[in-house]
């Protein structure tokens, strides 16, 4: 399990429930590595500022990641951790690979999840 203060998506059923429930959600799929930790930190900072968005992490090497986030068409061109996907109305509305700044994440939250 990732050592963050975010909620964890640990099963495919949980991921599918987020999709089918039409939730606004941001999921950071990564490891406890140098490019991932800053993104978890950004999400933790923004969690209280976007109460209508659910923020999660997901362990990149766990089966749940292989069955869900890593299988999404949106991330097939990514070669950099973490993979971050944003869900709204049952769809993936944005996806990023690699480290992201707070400003970059806010741009997506404001532009795609508002």
């Amino acid at each position, binding site marked *: 399990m990732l050592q963050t203060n975010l909620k964890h998506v640990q099963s495919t059923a949980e991921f599918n429930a987020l999709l089918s429930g039409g939730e606004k959600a941001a999921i950071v799929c990564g*490891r*406890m*590595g*140098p*490019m*991932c*930790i*800053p993104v978890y*930190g*950004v999400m933790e*900072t*923004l969690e209280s*500022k976007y109460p209508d968005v659910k923020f999660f992490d997901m362990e990149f090497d766990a089966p749940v990641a292989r069955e869900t986030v890593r299988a999404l068409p949106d991330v097939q*061109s*990514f*070669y*950099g*951790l973490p993979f971050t996907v944003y869900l709204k109305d049952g769809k993936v509305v944005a996806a*990023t*690979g*690699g*480290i992201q*700044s*707070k*400003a970059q994440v806010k741009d997506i939250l404001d532009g795609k999840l508002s």
Partner: protein
Amino acid sequence: MDTHDRSEWDVIVIGAGAAGLTAGIYLGRARQKTLILDHATVGGQMILTYAVANYPGVLEASGASIVHTMRQQAEAVGCTVMGNADVLRVDLRGDTKIVEVDDEGTFTAPVVILATGGIPRRLGLDSEEAFQARGISYCATCDGDFFTDQDIVVIGGGNSALEEAVSLTKYASSVTVIHEFEEFQAQPWAVEEARKNPKVRFLMAQEVVEFVGDGTLAAVVTRDKRSDELVRTEANGAFLFIGYVPNTRWLEGVVALNSRGEIVADEDLRTDVPGVFAAGDARAKRYRQITTAVADGTVAALSAIAYLTERARGAVDSAA
């Protein structure tokens, strides 16, 4: 203790890397109300370091774990540490310094320590931006396994570039080191390690012109500085290790910077602005290590405490 609503501090430390957190530890122990803030995640470049093996007293640890401990130490002595805090405006000229932070408010203090660190140097090519996380990476330990059995390049000629080139041979079929000069800046032992690895080859005196590919990286185009010829190197991955630049652009006109954009400070780490001190990789100095940043943080904090003591004495003298 949630102190985010507090606006008045004894010291505001801008930058929460090794220098900033160390300054906080010393200031907190001296019972100075200290706010440490960082535009990014707490830890600075330390958090981007997978393994630290040259920090005295610690056999080997991840940068993240050292950050975690330093932050705990700073908070244990009363510091408030705020990550992902974008500084919108600073006014450091007056006796009371003003720091305005996005989403958090305006903070004041008689002393500010600038410990803003460095940020990775980029080539500045449009195509570099386009292929980030689509073939271009800045972290071998994070992304190396995406390139298993593929051909990749490493751009740079310092210790980091050559050490990471060797490390990436665990995954890649071949690693081509592309360097802008004919000689490496790396230490001889790092060059030797790279040269004796059969998977590593070298392209010297090359200027990177463009990254090309269709959605993901396919090749790197360079210009040979000796012949002016364009050279195309097929590669699915490119790892950039071309050093750091001081994170000081926003300080132009605020404190004195040298021609490289580094903060100019004296032996006690005082800048040209009274009450403003500098520490860590953002200041002008030759060597940049976690240990030197920690030393800077210590000196800047002790100098700040001396300044505050003198200032308080002056206020008392004036009142008398």
